[in-house]
């Protein structure tokens, strides 16, 4: 009985375990497609570049942790000119461009810091920037007032970040000391800016920040501006110590994991299939010697040797896949060989032999098609161990340094002592992803396996 592909899929979907596996697999595939299509390619290549992630908060929890009772942590806010209310006007004959940002703050804690960014294009006379804030209680604080540095050349674009620790901001805030009723001396700018006047508690409500640029000639333009309020929660999955958005890391890790799992399992099971069939079909001394080689591979401890291999030959993702294949084919070869030993004695094979067909033709025409369904099952079952192998190598710090993988995220979490510091959002998602990926293929493989044993089908038919 030859099992068609459609038949296999039908069977897979009809069993609850198989269906669970398929559903998880579809989820992973759509996650990978989403990652490849919609996550900017720069996030992929710049994953290890701290500068790329500078706008993000450090070690922030996922923002949904704020839902529910209990004090709300400050949620990280990144705004740029796209959401600003931009107005142009003239003050005493000077052209001004003003970017106004309205932010509603309801958190029960202060932000960690704040930051203004701008990028301006100007010629000979540098513009002047004035930053002030109108607080919910009607107080207006001037924060920053300074000229941009002298132009370096024609049509010079100048980008800058003004941090809350800036000296000018501190000096400016110092003039409002008399307004507040608490001891200001040791207070940092973000507390001063976001606190109530009569007690040291966050002031909730609408804050209106405005960045006003005074331009002294007609050609100058403001290209962009922005406000970043450094909070303790961010995004769907939070960020790590290097400010990277873990949601992006998780999404980018899934195509890599699927690639590793599928390539390694496909290639190694194919090798195992051919090796096993030849060994089982030829029998006698060929079988004996081929199985001894198999035994040797069986007795090799995979992980220590994988470590040595990647130290000796390099760490690219393709090399790692190759190393995993070296240890992946052994089990399949053994199973396939024992089946081939039995199929060899079936009458149609012997008939083909008497008809004078060549060994190669018998192997590829008559034996391997019988074993194909089981091979697919073995491929699915081999995926988890490949993914776990790659994750283990990455976890030891031997992963491909140019690609974010789940194992590497966990490696960094472990190096930063995330578990002992209670940063669960750094540990839980990558491990769960590894586990459910393994689980999906394991369930699919087990379902296929119960269906695809060739001997069972042969005897059922006879």
């Amino acid at each position: 009985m030859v099992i068609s592909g459609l038949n296999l899929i039908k069977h897979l979907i009809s069993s609850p375990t198989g269906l669970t596996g398929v559903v998880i697999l579809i989820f992973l595939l759509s996650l990978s497609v989403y990652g490849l299509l919609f996550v900017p390619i720069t996030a992929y290549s710049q994953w290890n570049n701290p500068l790329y992630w500078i706008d993000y908060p450090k070690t922030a929890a996922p923002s949904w942790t704020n839902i529910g009772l209990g004090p709300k942590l400050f949620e990280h806010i990144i705004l740029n000119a796209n959401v600003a209310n931009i107005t142009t006007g003239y003050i005493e004959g000077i052209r001004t461009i003003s970017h106004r940002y309205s932010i509603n703050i309801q958190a029960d804690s202060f932000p960690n810091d704040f930051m203004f960014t701008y990028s301006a294009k100007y010629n000979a006379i540098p513009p002047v920037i004035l930053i002030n804030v109108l607080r919910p209680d009607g107080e207006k604080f001037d924060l920053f007032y300074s000229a941009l540095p002298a132009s370096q050349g024609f049509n010079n674009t100048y980008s800058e970040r003004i941090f809350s620790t800036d000296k000018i901001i501190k000096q400016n805030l110092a003039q409002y000391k008399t307004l507040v009723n608490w001891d200001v001396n040791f207070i940092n700018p973000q507390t001063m800016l976001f606190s109530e006047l009569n007690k040291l508690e966050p002031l909730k409500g609408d804050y209106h920040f405005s960045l006003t640029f005074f331009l002294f000639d007609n050609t100058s333009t403001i290209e962009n501006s922005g406000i970043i309020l450094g909070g303790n929660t961010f995004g769907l999955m939070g960020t790590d110590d290097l400010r990277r958005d873990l949601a992006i890391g998780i999404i980018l890790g899934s195509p890599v994991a699927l690639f590793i799992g599928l390539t390694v399992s496909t290639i190694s099971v194919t090798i195992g299939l051919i090796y096993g069939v030849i060994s089982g079909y030829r029998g006698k001394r060929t079988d004996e010697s081929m199985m001894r080689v198999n035994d040797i591979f069986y007795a090799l401890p995979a992980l220590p040797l994988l470590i040595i291999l990647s130290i000796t030959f390099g760490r690219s993702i393709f090399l790692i896949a190759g190393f995993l294949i070296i240890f992946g084919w052994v089990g399949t070869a053994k199973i396939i060989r024992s089946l081939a030993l039995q199929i060899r004695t079936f009458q149609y094979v012997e008939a083909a032999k008497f008809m004078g067909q060549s060994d190669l033709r018998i192997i590829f025409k008559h034996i391997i098609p019988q074993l194909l369904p089981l091979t697919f099952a073995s491929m699915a079952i081999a995926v988890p161990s490949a993914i776990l192998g790659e994750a283990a190598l990455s976890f030891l710090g031997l992963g491909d340094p140019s690609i974010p993988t789940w194992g590497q995220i966990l490696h960094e979490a472990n190096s930063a002592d995330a578990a002992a510091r209670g940063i669960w959002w750094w540990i839980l998602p990558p491990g769960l992803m590894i586990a459910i990926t393994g689980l999906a293929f394991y369930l699919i493989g087990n379902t296929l396996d119960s269906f695809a044993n060739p001997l069972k089908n042969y005897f059922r038919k006879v």
Partner: protein
Amino acid sequence: MILVLFVTLLVTILLLGPPLDKILLENIRTQVVDQVNESNLKFQNPSERQSYVDKQITYRTSILGLNEPWYSPSKLYTRFISTMTLDLGKSHFFTTDAGSSNVRDIIFEKVPKTLLLFTSSTIIVTVIGILLGSFVAARSGSIWDKINSIFAIFSNSFPSWWVAMIMIFLFAFTLQIFPARATPTTSPSDPSYPINLVYHMLLPLITITFVSFGAWAYIVRYFLINILKEDYISAKRTIGISKKRILYSHALRNAAPPIATSVALGLAASFGGSIIVEAVFDWPGMGKLYYDAIGVLDIPIIIGLTYISTLIFIVTIFIIDISYAFFDPRVKTF
């Protein structure tokens, strides 16, 4: 079997070849430069000194046979011997507690700790696995059986070192029952050292046990159920031997050989896993040393550790193979 053992070692050593050569060359270079610096040799100019050093290096490499290709028999032989005796020179970054930086001393200091953790967890997992496996095998199809099967599948797909991190988060950070670092805090000479050691070992031990006992029980159940269907079991039942006795004494003994095989493979997998678990827990064994050595790329240590772990691994498989003959008198290993 012995042949397999030797070929495996040979393959390992062949793989270790290139980095080992690099180390030896590096050692020779430093030795020569040191000697030139210490001796009273006078040179006219830097290039003369350089040519002298180069000549010395080529001389010594040819004596040691480093210039020969990797397949030359004499080289293979010496490498075989030097790896077997762990004669790998000095580590650049690590020392023993006593201060020796000899690779052999460093590794031998760590091996007992790994064996302690690995053996004790294996024994605990074996006992739990056999008891639980026969418990569910006697009640196949019950809710216990299903829970056990689901648990086995789940615990198989979780990386054990990830579970270790979760355990640290739960027990060391949230509940604060166990220390986050498994390195004992007292010195070995202190009388309270054994207690301290066991206390620090508990969390890694619980983790390894938790991760692997499900799969174990599943394997035991699988083979036991097959045997319980056999005719001789029902015959024993009709004679009037109690169900418990049949299960634990007759059926289990007959199921032992296939269980032992699966376990050998399971152990192999968990050995690699427990190396990483050690690194997560900071348990001062080989795994932790591996992790640190990879971090600073200390090649001699890595090679030594690979060799030792290969040896431990092969010996484990070997012992299990021999135990076959004990379980199943029909099998003769030699």
